[in-house]
């Protein structure tokens, strides 16, 4: 048995390309099975009701307009105008809804690209986003020039995102003060809760607007869900919130109005937390 180690040179061997072990393919993340986006039963039913309402009313209105034309041309035109205006407004609302959803979707795509480390896609999404958000305008040229993903992210975090987070916190503070005042003046705890819920939804929409999103009803629902998810992470880490709560509730003006701030403090805390969570939910890159 030959034993000594040796290099087995082959005379014919020509310079070869690098060895390819097929590693890149072997390690690609196993993608989770695509979630089939089928309509749920309630959504189907709601859609049906909508179609019936709109469709039947449209047929009804069309008949009505035809009747009016039979009575006289001017009356017919007038009725047609009124009908067109009404349906146009409804259509416009639908369009706004879709646009809101699309904006949310593009933020989602940006986040996914960043998570994958896909520089080209992330850059596209970020530039797209920056064109919509006024706070990002000063950084836009620098963003365009960023040559790699870390630089792009660092620019975003340092410039526009920091500013947007600050604005979101400011909005949260305003909402906190309002709900604090509301707990002082609203007579019943039930109404109290109602006010807080309404103010919370408005706050989330405000923060979304700060981040360049204008969600409609569906978009707001989606955003609310995501915000609740983020709230866990925010509540977990943040001492900053406690500090902000103390700052708000010990404001002398507030103290004089509210007197005992204990119940109000809870509401204020929720608003501050909500603002941060909403800001996390709307960001173009997931906060680290």
């Amino acid at each position, binding site marked *: 048995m030959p034993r000594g180690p*040796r290099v*087995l040179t082959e005379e014919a061997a020509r*310079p070869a*390309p690098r*060895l390819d*072990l097929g590693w890149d393919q072997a390690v690609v*993340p196993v993608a989770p099975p695509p979630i089939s986006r089928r309509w749920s039963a309630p959504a189907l039913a709601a859609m049906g009701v909508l179609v019936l309402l709109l469709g039947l009313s449209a047929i009804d209105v069309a008949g009505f307009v035809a009747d009016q034309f039979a009575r006289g041309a001017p009356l017919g035109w007038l009725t047609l105008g009124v009908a067109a205006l009404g349906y146009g407004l409804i259509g416009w609302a639908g369009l706004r809804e879709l646009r809101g959803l699309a904006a949310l979707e593009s933020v989602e795509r940006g986040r996914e690209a960043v998570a994958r480390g896909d520089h080209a896609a992330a850059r596209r999404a970020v530039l797209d986003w920056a064109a919509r958000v006024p706070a990002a305008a000063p950084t836009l040229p620098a963003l365009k020039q960023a040559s790699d993903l870390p630089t792009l992210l660092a620019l975003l975090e340092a410039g526009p995102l920091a500013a947007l987070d600050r604005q979101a916190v400011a909005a949260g503070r305003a909402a906190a003060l309002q709900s604090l005042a509301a707990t002082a003046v609203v007579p019943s705890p039930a109404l109290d809760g109602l006010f807080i819920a309404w103010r919370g939804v408005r706050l989330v929409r405000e923060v979304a607007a700060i981040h360049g999103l204008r969600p409609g009803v569906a978009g707001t629902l989606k955003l609310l869900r995501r915000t609740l998810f983020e709230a*866990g992470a925010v509540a977990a880490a943040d001492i900053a919130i406690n500090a902000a709560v103390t700052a708000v509730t010990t404001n002398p003006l507030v103290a004089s109005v509210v007197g005992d701030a204990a119940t109000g403090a809870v509401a204020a805390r929720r608003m501050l937390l909500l603002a941060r969570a909403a800001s996390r939910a709307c960001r173009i890159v997931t906060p680290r």
Partner: protein
Amino acid sequence: MPLLTPIEDALAGMSDLARAMAGRERVRLAVTGLSRAGKTVFLTSVVANLLAAGQGARTLPALEAAAGGRLRGVRLVPAGTEATPRFDAPGHLAALAADPPRWPGRTEDLSTLELELTVSPASWLGQARGMVMGDRRVTLELLDYPGEWLLDLPMLEQGFEEWSRETLARLRVGRRAEAAAEFLAFVDALPPRATAEEALAREGFRLYRAALLRLRDEMGFRFLQPGRALNPGPRGEAPLLWFFPLPEGHGGGLADLLRRRHAAYLADQRAAFFDPFFRRFHRQVVLVDALGALHAGEQAFDDTAEALAAIAAALRQGGGWMDLLTGQGVRRVGFAATKADHVPARAREALASLMGDLVGRQTPSVLGAETPVRAIAAIRCTEDTSALLEGRPVAAVRGVLMRDGRLTPVYPGEVPLRRPGPEFWDAPYFEMPAFQPPRLLGDGAAGIPHLGLDALLAALIGDLL
């Protein structure tokens, strides 16, 4: 041992405990390996593959299985205000991926890097903590250093006389004596009461270092001291280095000068290297180029085994009963024969077994039941093939050689299960040629192809995740 260290250790143990309770552990992974063992490449591969795993790539399946799929993300801890250079993992990776590829050169300085692993909590206790503190974050501290310096560790416990005696005794036998003939002739001719002539000290050191370099570079020996004579490091050569072992019976001014330099050198190494970086660690991996040692011949093989045993003994000595009390003695050790891609798949078991024999012979106690001994390749550069050798088919490996860029089969010889008998060592000195790394993505998004790195990491740090 300075008086304060037990107290410092106790404090360190307490802060470890507090961090563990808060879910913010720091784990220092000591990578010990002689020069050319593959430390720098190992660290580069660990960093690249962990970062890729954090992005979801399945580069370390065994580690992920050990972590129960709870690894949520991995990131490099951003640089702070450290005085130690940063281990340039992205730079090394880019060099390996470049065309033509470059392996990292000899490491000449210390460098450190920290990785932060985000892990979702496992127990209900962890989940309860997670509500307050967020996810668990485990910081992995890594250190790269020149392998030669590690052999200063056994020197720390010796005086100049003892060190001289042992070093000269080693130098006088076998092939070492050939390489060091000039130096040995010089010290043997020194008058026993030589005065502190600087010229004598410099000449002795020059000859001694020449012998060390020849032993390291041409013969594959590793038990060579002091480390900075071979690899002076970023501060370059300083007068405290200019000493060499003296035979017994010397008592003049020269002996005095050399003794003082020896002491000053050890104090310097201790302060700059061992105390800050090697006094405390939680996990240890010992990397050995077992195949290289085998190929370098009988004496070089035994020399490597001796060097490893001396280092292991020195590290154990640091950990006495006090360490057990302060919690600093809880260590997990893993042994790995590196460059396992130099042998075909069915010889890798044998390589691991040879490795166990190499590190276990003089230090049976370190090899506990669950101590992993593995054969790994931090970067897999070859594929298995078979070749005809003197008319017989043999299992070999095939890779693109660095020196001429040709795809070449290499027969690594038979790998024995333990230190082979005398008839094995007839084969001439052989040095495995360096292979080109395989095709890599320069940004590291897919990690680095490896062999067994995941299982080693799972055994070393899997319990932390």
